[in-house]
């Protein structure tokens, strides 16, 4: 049986984001997803947020953190009502472990990656609704997992809930058992424990939250923060490798079906330069500097040439090529060598 929530007819939400385009997207999306039942105020500065907060009682504050130097704790305490009287959500892009820890330490009830896709917005909306005990429409009771599943587990653990999260794709893929805010067991097919927990994060499907029941065994004994962090890192690493493979397969100039070359070196970092995957890359630091230099140069010329965002830089070498992709959330370097040996 799925868990039940208390119905709240309307919710007063304050969204703070200094990126105006993102703010408009968050405002429009949450308004639509709540079917107009969220009363949303949007502020693109802290000053404006404080003015709005003075006018009425806020039940949920959504704070988009686009800069790591923002003092989340100070901001929460300046809203004119005790921080315990409203729920606090921090959205960050990129969402780093350091930011997650700092935000939770500052009193955030939920920390999530800033959603960039319709699916991500829906998952964020579902997580925030769950946080404030706001009943979702029926079609939200289960959803595709990924960002949403991590958020849901985090929320259950922070609230010291006991529950069972079950994942489906036509049939049950596995279960995660949470007891009083601690992850105690995970099972995925024939495997259990940490491997099962990590694997569940890489699968595609939907999830449902059930009332707690005792597991047949206890296979998880580390903190939920550690387990969740490792699982998300593992999933991101797999995604990044998949992305790199796609770049390799793009094979500029290669005949369809013919391999573009053999991989010689690969480096994948997070947007802030944390190495996620490294293979045959003796000078990772040098490659990272190069990626950051390319991002800097692209920023300079983008307004002038008006050709949209940079997708990648391709370097044609005498016997191969290198592809560098500096994105906000990923920095990727791939070098391939030609297959053909010239006589």
């Amino acid at each position, binding site marked *: 049986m799925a868990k039940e929530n208390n119905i709240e007819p309307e919710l007063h939400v304050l969204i703070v984001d200094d990126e105006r385009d993102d703010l408009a997207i968050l405002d429009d999306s949450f308004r639509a997803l709540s079917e107009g039942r969220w009363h949303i105020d949007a502020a693109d500065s802290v000053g404006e947020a404080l003015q709005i907060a003075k006018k009425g009682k806020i039940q949920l504050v959504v704070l988009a953190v686009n800069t790591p130097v923002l003092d989340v704790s100070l901001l929460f305490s300046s809203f004119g009502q005790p921080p315990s009287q409203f729920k606090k959500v921090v959205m960050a892009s990129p969402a780093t472990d350091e930011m997650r820890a700092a935000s939770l330490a500052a009193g955030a009830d939920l920390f999530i990656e800033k959603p960039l896709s319709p699916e991500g917005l829906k998952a964020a909306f579902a997580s925030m609704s769950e946080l404030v005990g706001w009943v979702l429409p029926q079609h939200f009771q289960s959803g595709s997992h990924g960002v949403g599943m991590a958020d849901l587990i985090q929320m259950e653990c922070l609230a010291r809930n006991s529950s069972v999260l079950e994942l489906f794709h036509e049939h049950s893929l596995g279960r995660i058992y949470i007891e009083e805010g601690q992850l105690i067991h995970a099972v995925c097919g024939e495997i259990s424990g940490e491997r099962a927990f990590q694997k569940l994060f890489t699968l595609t499907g939907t999830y449902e939250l059930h009332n707690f029941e005792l597991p047949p065994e206890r296979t998880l004994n580390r903190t939920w923060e550690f387990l969740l962090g490792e699982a998300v890192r593992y999933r991101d690493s797999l995604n990044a490798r998949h992305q790199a493979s796609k770049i390799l397969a793009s094979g500029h100039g290669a005949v369809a079906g013919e391999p573009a070359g053999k991989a010689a070196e690969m480096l994948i970092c997070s947007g802030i330069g944390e190495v996620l995957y490294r293979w045959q890359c003796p*000078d990772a630091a*040098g490659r990272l500097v190069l990626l950051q230099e390319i991002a800097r140069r692209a920023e300079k010329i*983008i307004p002038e*040439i008006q*050709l*949209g965002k940079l997708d990648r*830089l391709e*370097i*044609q070498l005498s016997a191969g090529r290198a592809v560098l992709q500096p994105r906000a959330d990923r920095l990727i370097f791939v070098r391939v060598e030609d297959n053909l040996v010239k006589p």
Partner: protein
Amino acid sequence: MKDNFKTWFAALPAVPGMLACGVRRPNGKCAAQGDDNNYPAVKIEKLLGQFADFHEPLAAAELSPRWTTWVFEYGQLRFVLRPDKWLLLLLVSPETEAAQKLDLLSEEFLAGPVK
């Protein structure tokens, strides 16, 4: 030979999809051709100046390029640096004849002496 290069360079804007092109000599002097509204010569010459030294850090990182291609959403920017320090810039729309001919034009630039 110099005349041959001039003829070759003058013909570049006629390639369908070529938005702009430019060349920078080793002494820093530039020549550029492009749509006066979106890509005036002064803008292309500025780009050439900004990227004149870009191949050096690549070479230092053991990535000596024959050419580099900046792939944007709506176009590609190709830089070709000859060993004698002549630098060619080609700005093309994606999926056009000019985009398809980028490698060919780059090879011609690398192979053909300009002085």
